[in-house]
């Protein structure tokens, strides 16, 4: 049975430090690490004005759709997508087989692209450390109370 991918405090601290450095270097607004399934793993920068959970889900869908197009035109790799806007632009870049870096920025894309290479290497290295960690380490799902799940989601009284 596959083990659960899990991230401990050390992973998140390292990823956040990489993102903070990246934002300082590029003057970008927000940087997110997301899973290709659409999960938001962590983020740094401006968060109040953006729905990062939804941005993560949509960015992963857009990236994966472009990967499929790549396959259809016999291109082995579209490693990034870039959407230019008036106020904000978006850059989504492959990190490894499971995750992506999403950057929301108002600055020049060249700067973002230039510093992305170093950042994704550090992010990929830390995620690899997390994946290789002994399965079960740090997991204590016994804290979950599942005695009665019929009320996990309740219909609101009208």
């Amino acid at each position: 049975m596959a083990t659960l991918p899990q991230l401990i405090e050390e992973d998140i601290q390292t990823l956040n430090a990489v993102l903070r450095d990246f934002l300082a270097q590029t003057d970008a607004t927000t940087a997110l690490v997301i899973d290709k399934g659409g999960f938001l793993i962590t983020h740094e920068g401006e968060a109040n004005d953006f729905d990062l959970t939804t941005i993560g889900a949509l960015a992963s869908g857009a990236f994966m759709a472009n990967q499929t197009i790549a396959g259809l035109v016999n291109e082995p790799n579209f490693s990034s997508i870039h959407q230019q806007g008036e106020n904000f632009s978006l850059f989504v870049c492959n990190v490894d087989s499971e995750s992506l870096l999403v950057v929301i920025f108002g600055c020049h894309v060249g700067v973002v692209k230039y510093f992305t290479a170093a950042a994704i290497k550090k992010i990929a290295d830390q995620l690899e450390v997390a994946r290789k960690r002994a399965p079960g380490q740090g997991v204590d799902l016994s804290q979950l109370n599942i005695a009665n799940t019929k009320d996990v989601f309740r219909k609101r009284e009208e």
Partner: protein
Amino acid sequence: MAIINQATKELQVKVVYYGPAMGGKTTNLVQVHDHVQTAQGNKGKLVSLATSSDRTLFFDFLPIEAMTIKGFKTKFQLYTVPGQVIYNTTRQLVLRGVDGIVFVADSQYEKMPENVESFQNMMDNLNALKMNAAEIPYVLQYNKRDLPNAAPVEYMEFLLNNRETQVPSFTATAHKCEGVFETLNMITRLLLHKYINQSQGAPQPA
């Protein structure tokens, strides 16, 4: 595959509503969005990537946080897939990283071939993604029970739930929000049991 973030004590899981076109997948998400009781801020916006005629083009997405689980914040991401046959590539994209599936079947007699085809397509897509379908929890929802031409539940069970291990199934009239929460809570239960069993079965650090 779900993500556990120990730093923020969050468990994120992805549930996909699968089934034939016009079967009520989007309606399920709309009803959950409209009627779920949550603490303020625990329910995200329902995002629909739909055509001008309200048919799902890519997916619908609803992030939602469970309310009664102690210790961990359990964040659910609910997705639907487009039901039309031509959008199979899109369905594969949405299935990536799925933790649990709600198969929404249309109860009308004339929709039975589409139900069976869609169910087989789901199994084929899981195999194509190298996911072991036997390890992905799923539940069945027999929707549109209020229609006069609804097939008997026993017949739908025979068509869709006729396996060595039967899965939980629910009757529903999604547009009236009947059966919607029962279905969602059951897939939640199956998922949490799975992850607790996995974590208890995993070797602990020395």
